[in-house]
């Protein structure tokens, strides 16, 4: 059985996801000892700027039509950007591995904890439990897809083994994506402007695969998903230590410093991650 990791990098005009993916891939090589495949819609960009890093494979895909999405860069700055991240379900057919770790490019691996996922005889492992490193914000939106509906699962990081069950799962995610307006209503997402979101589609598909119970199709990845929001700012990565300016409670635009050590962290502020990788400190 072959094991490996896959990272999607679908560049837009504002964020160089390939740069983030190269950095993330190096961490996967170092801490998890896994080969990494890049799935991108801009292979020429990789060849031009990052070809000194050797991915196990590079798979070029056509990206879906983009949508617009507002993202924050710290607590008082935001930007409307192109959003193309709706191809996640294709990973079943695209991955060259029998057992695959799928990561967002902004998921920074600082430990070997995900190694243990490859020692477990489970076909689909994903994070359900997460922890906002700010410690004060209400994270209920990451507990359920909304207060009325099913548990939330993170499509940011998951491990799957190829099987008829996982194939059905990814087909189901594709079906949900194709019928997003219907599934939004079915799962009590009432906002008309609610864009397709991989996390929500995965959560709905897991609910169906489990027969609408808290069944056993999806098991928890080891540990918890630690994350900071796009209203926080990453200011430094030093080996396995990451330093953040985290949004203060009730003080708009003010931050407090926090540091993590040996923890994998999902850095939602991709712009600050990008600046840190360029050598900047964001302060």
């Amino acid at each position, binding site marked *: 059985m072959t094991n490996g990791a896959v990272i999607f990098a679908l560049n837009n005009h504002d964020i160089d996801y390939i740069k983030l993916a190269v950095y993330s891939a190096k961490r996967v090589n170092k801490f998890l000892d896994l080969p990494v495949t890049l799935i991108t819609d801009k292979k020429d960009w990789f060849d031009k700027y990052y070809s000194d890093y050797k991915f196990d494979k590079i798979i070029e895909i056509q990206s879906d039509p983009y949508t617009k999405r507002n993202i924050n860069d710290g607590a008082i700055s935001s930007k409307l950007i192109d959003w193309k991240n709706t191809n996640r379900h294709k990973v079943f057919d695209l991955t060259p591995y029998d057992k695959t770790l799928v990561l967002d490019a902004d998921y920074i691996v600082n430990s070997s904890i995900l190694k243990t996922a490859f020692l477990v005889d489970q076909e689909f492992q994903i994070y359900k439990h997460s922890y906002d490193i700010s410690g004060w914000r209400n994270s209920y939106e990451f507990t359920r897809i909304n*207060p*009325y*509906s099913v548990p939330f699962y993170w499509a940011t990081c998951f491990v799957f083994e190829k099987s008829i069950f996982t194939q059905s799962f990814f087909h189901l995610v594709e079906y949900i994506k194709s019928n997003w307006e219907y599934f939004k209503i079915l799962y009590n997402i009432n906002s008309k402007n609610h864009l397709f979101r991989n996390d929500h589609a995965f959560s709905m598909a897991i609910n169906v695969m489990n027969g609408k*119970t*808290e069944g056993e199709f999806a098991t928890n990845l080891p540990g918890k998903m630690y994350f900071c929001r796009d209203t926080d700012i990453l200011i430094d990565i030093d080996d396995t230590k990451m330093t953040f300016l985290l949004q203060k409670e009730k003080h708009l635009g003010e931050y407090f410093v926090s540091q993590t050590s040996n923890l994998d962290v999902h850095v939602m502020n991709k712009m600050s991650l990008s600046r840190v990788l360029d050598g900047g400190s964001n302060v």
Partner: protein
Amino acid sequence: MSKGFIVAAQNTDTVDYIKQAYVLALSIKNSQKDVSCISIMTNDSVPDTYRHVFDQIIPIPWLDDSKDKSWKVENRWKLYHVTPYDETIVLDTDMLLLEDISLWWRHCSNYELLFCNRVKNYKNELILEDTFYRNAFIKNNLPNPYFALHYFKKSDFAHEFYKVLEFVVFNWEWCWTKFAPDHYQNWLSMDLASAIAIEILGCHGQVLDSAGPLEFVHMKPALQNWLEKTTPWSEIVPFYVNSNGELIIGNMKQTKLVHYVEKNFLSESLIKTYEGLLV
């Protein structure tokens, strides 16, 4: 030892509790492997089409203490005295039993009297402390029993308990003043009466078991962890009963016992579904 369920049902101007008991009985017949007998205590007329699901239809003994009352709970202490079973599980009529609970019977047989003291919402979230409906319990440091689901065995201890419960029901205002003065409830509730009976007898450890299996899904809106605390839940989340009699609320299959609470929950199509399962 005979085993069975029992409910008290007294129709009001607005609610057909006999119909609720009928659908509960259908759900019991559809879901239970070992114990599917259910009896009903009522003075109301039970339609012929409903009678076949009930083991016994028992008149309310002595006087009807709920006469002229809008919320008829005053007779419920009599359930102990009328039950035809050696071991009985008491349920509210506005409940559905969706899965086999043979394990509950085995667990309960270790007790003479056992109350459910744990509920969850339809999302399977445990209600750690019900600060909306149960402040009278919390503020007065009373135990947290749910009369809507409890077990008793014909025994001296259970008999003694029900005698005390009878006293509390007949003297509830005095008892509330004595045992639950904080957040005073100006109505009789069997839950609070049971809590006070437990307090009077000091039998907490004998009748409550937090680690036991007794629990139910409580659909009172304020327990659902929503912003809406009083809107009927059926106006907020979609629900349906599928052809197997499984209840799906908000895309989550409900397990074991559900207390649906809303009086207009029972549609004709839902009743037909359960009737069809018995054919």
